[in-house]
């Protein structure tokens, strides 16, 4: 279905003729099926490239007037960035890409939606500042990650999930009002996102974000931490063989392996109580093998050698990052005490060296998208959060539903390919099971959802909080009653703020 000429002209008057298109060949880039799905998204009827918040507001109002749906997106890696119904326009916020302010003194940065992790993280390094970069790759939008999607990262043990770092929000509501939340509401600056009174930022993002389902976040401020590394990325080598070593006197990676998950758990908990370390993780092993190799063939060679299954089935990754050599030595002593008590031992040097040689794993995670390499059919499940202890409990139940898929050859034989990342020195933790399946199989189109459903059923059976209810109407309605009737409140809030249901309606 095409956009009516008169509506096109309205949009064109807002953004200018160079920044709108309804040409099929332009739209072709916004309607491709993702590799994990055979289903082609509905084509948008137009794409717009607004440059200012006011343009976004004007577009949103036109959409409301004409009952047009809109999806605001930046990098569009996630399927929520694609239309699931007719009459949808895409607001590509790439031109809204300014770093509005880096406040070195008060430690916050104000950014627009189009600013990418690679840009902001490296820009901030010059000021001795940093923030937890989401594990999405350097081309991911910082704003989308902080305010609209999820926000887990490799250093959340020493920091937190990204939404904790929101310090200010400018938000065009689904009907086109511009709201400024937190201290910004009273022109007090961009340093605090909660209040005045009830914190409306709760509407913008919960465990995950609204994925564009409640208007458009156009600017945010994020809180910044100190960066203990050099002012520029100390990268050596050439693509795809980059190496990055941070100064050895204050930065060190250690990886241990344990006979049981319980021991990993005990070590993780003990480390958290001492507040040493900057990153602590039980990391994926197949994903680690993908990150460590340059091609699918190399991956298979490594995976078939069994090294990563042997060394990284139950690993604990620890990255120590300190202000002095003395502090590093102290942290290492504490760590070794804990590892000795909990029965861990160092992994083979050939595995450890991968991470010692490439500490970007804890900075930008520049190669994260390598996990997609095996043909691209992949998905995460679980994606839940609670205590470190509960996440391990959830992990121990994974084989109950997952082994069958492996036995039937439907997914990659990688039962330990899950991650448990503690946050805030172990006060919470996040779990993620990443599974890959092969598009050459006849039933490949079904596998992704089958695993996800089985995972959710497993949670229900054990009353595990292994997932937060997903953004899909049917799933939400089925699960909502078991999750405190959250679907009712989510729907009511959506209806109140988006009465015309035009802001990326829930699939």
């Amino acid at each position, binding site marked *: 279905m095409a956009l009516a000429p008169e509506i096109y002209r309205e949009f064109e008057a807002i953004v200018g003729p*160079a920044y709108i*298109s309804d*040409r*099929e*060949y*332009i*739209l*072709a*880039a916004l*309607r*491709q*099926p*993702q*590799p994990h799905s055979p289903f082609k998204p509905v084509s948008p009827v137009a*794409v717009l490239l607004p440059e200012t918040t006011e343009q976004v507001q004007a577009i949103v109002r036109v959409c409301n007037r004409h009952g047009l749906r809109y999806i605001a997106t930046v*990098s*569009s*890696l996630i399927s929520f*960035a694609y239309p699931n119904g007719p009459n949808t326009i895409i607001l*590509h916020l790439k*031109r809204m890409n300014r*770093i509005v302010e880096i406040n070195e003194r008060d430690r916050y940065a104000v950014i627009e939606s189009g600013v*990418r992790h*690679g*840009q902001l993280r*490296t*820009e901030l390094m*010059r000021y001795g500042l940093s923030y937890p970069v989401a594990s999405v*790759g*350097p*081309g*991911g939008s910082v704003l989308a990650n902080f305010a609209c999607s999820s926000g887990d990262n490799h250093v959340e043990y020493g920091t937190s999930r990204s939404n904790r770092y929101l310090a200010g929000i400018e938000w065009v509501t689904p009907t086109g009002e511009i709201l400024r939340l937190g201290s910004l509401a009273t022109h007090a600056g961009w340093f605090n996102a909660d209040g005045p009174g009830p914190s409306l930022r709760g509407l913008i993002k919960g465990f995950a974000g609204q994925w564009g389902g409640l208007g458009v976040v156009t600017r945010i401020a994020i809180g910044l931490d100190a960066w203990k590394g050099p002012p520029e*990325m100390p*990268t050596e080598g*050439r*693509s*795809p063989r*980059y190496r990055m070593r941070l100064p050895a006197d204050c930065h060190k990676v250690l990886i241990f392996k344990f006979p049981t998950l319980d021991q990993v758990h005990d070590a993780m908990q003990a480390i958290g109580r001492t507040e040493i370390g900057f990153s602590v993780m039980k990391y994926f092993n197949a994903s680690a093998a993908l990150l460590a190799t340059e*091609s*699918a*063939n190399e*991956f*298979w060679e490594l995976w078939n050698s069994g090294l990563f299954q042997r060394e990284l089935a139950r690993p604990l990754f620890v990255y120590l990052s300190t202000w002095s050599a003395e502090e590093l030595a102290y942290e290492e002593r504490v760590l070794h005490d804990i590892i000795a008590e909990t029965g861990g031992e160092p992994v083979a040097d050939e595995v450890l060296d991968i991470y010692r040689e490439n500490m*970007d794993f804890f900075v*930008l995670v*520049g*190669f*994260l*998208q*390598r996990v*997609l*390499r*095996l*043909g*691209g059919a992949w998905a995460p499940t679980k994606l839940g959060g609670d205590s470190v202890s509960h996440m391990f409990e959830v992990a121990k139940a994974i084989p109950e539903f997952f082994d069958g898929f492996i036995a039937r050859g439907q997914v*990659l034989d990688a039962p330990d390919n899950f991650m448990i990342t503690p946050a805030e020195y172990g006060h919470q933790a996040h779990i993620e099971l990443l599974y*890959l399946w092969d*598009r*050459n*199989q006849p039933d490949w189109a079904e596998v992704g959802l089958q695993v996800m459903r089985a995972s959710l059923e497993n949670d229900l059976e054990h009353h595990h909080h292994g997932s937060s209810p997903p953004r899909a109407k049917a799933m939400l309605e089925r699960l909502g009653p078991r999750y405190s009737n959250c679907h009712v409140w989510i729907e009511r809030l959506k209806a109140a703020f988006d009465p015309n249901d035009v802001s990326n309606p829930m699939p």
Partner: protein
Amino acid sequence: MTAMNRLEDLRYTMESCNHCGQCKWVAGPRTTGWRFAEICPIHMRHHFDAYSGQGLLNIARELLDGELSYEPGLVDLIYSCTMCGACDTACKSIRDMEVLDTIAALRAHCVDAGHGPPAPLTRAADAIATHGNVFGRPRAERDGWRHTPAREEGGSGPIPEPSSSSEIAYFAGCAACYLQTGIARDSARILAAGGWDVQILGSDEECCGRLLWQTGQWQAAEQQIERNLAIFRRRGIKTLVTSCAECFGAFRGIYPRFAAVEVEVLHISEVIARMLREGALRFDREVDLHVTYHDPCLLGRQSEPYVPWQGEIKSFGLHEPPKTWRRGHDGVYDAPREVLRAIPGVTVTEMARHEENALCCGAGGGVAAANPVLARWTANERLDEAEATGAAAIVSCCPQCRGNFTAALPRRDRALDVFDLTNLAARAL
């Protein structure tokens, strides 16, 4: 054609794209800040996803599947890409996908369907067929550069007489033969100074055919390649030295798609670096200049030898037989820098985007002919980056880059000098 280069052969690439966006960005570990972080010229200019490696893959898939028609503007979009390969290298840092090959195949698909290339590129193909060069200049003038001094040349000595028996040949390329003859003249001087006796092909030299391949005119490209290889065989050439990055990249990366290349191909920067290391060449004259070096796409990320692959992509991306990937790692990056640093008085500051992450000058892929406005726009972006280094000059190893930068200069506030490496090296002799 010997390998899987047709659009239908590249379906795995088209179906594997996750829209991660890496094709638009400098590799994360090489990013230096907010500025100069993007890497795809057409995406920087137009912002729509369709103008990017990812978008072109999507368009290719829809065209292949008959889901998209050739409405006005589509072919122009497809031919706006400079074929710089930045998307390809960026994507291959993380994936096993052939983005650039798909874009090339997409253009060939358009041509096969009778929808391309744009007229200036058809004219260029006709000129090559008729005159052996893209400019339609007389074949007889091909070695005219030997006799007429050029403004840009750095050396001052006489041009040595070519050898008739050497197994080494200097392949000047169309641009250095007709437009920037100083590059050819300085190359000849340098080779002689280093003790290399070389053949000059003269009127036997023809266009390398790079443009034909890049613009989807593959039948013509194949003929051109066969013609050139025959000349090389006939003249007993074992080693070919080029001063043009595009010719160099063509011999290494395009020719093997059509035929076995039995000559060793060297870029003049590699030759000079070797001469310097071996003591065969010395730079005695000081050249007091702060420069930045621009990596030509076909000398850098696109110059890895192409190894034909015919096989099957099995479960979970396993390529059988194993494939030799061209990921941009082993391009010619060090030699030009080594040469520059050896010139007394020259200081080199890198641009934010360099080596495999270099931004294209904007001229490649037929864009200079088909879309000169876009070519100049991209050149300006690159010149901005060069200026940000504080350098007084930008040096490249490719007459196309030099030509495009020079064309962009008149509308700029600051006068940045533009040099070919050979001109600076010859000045230091």
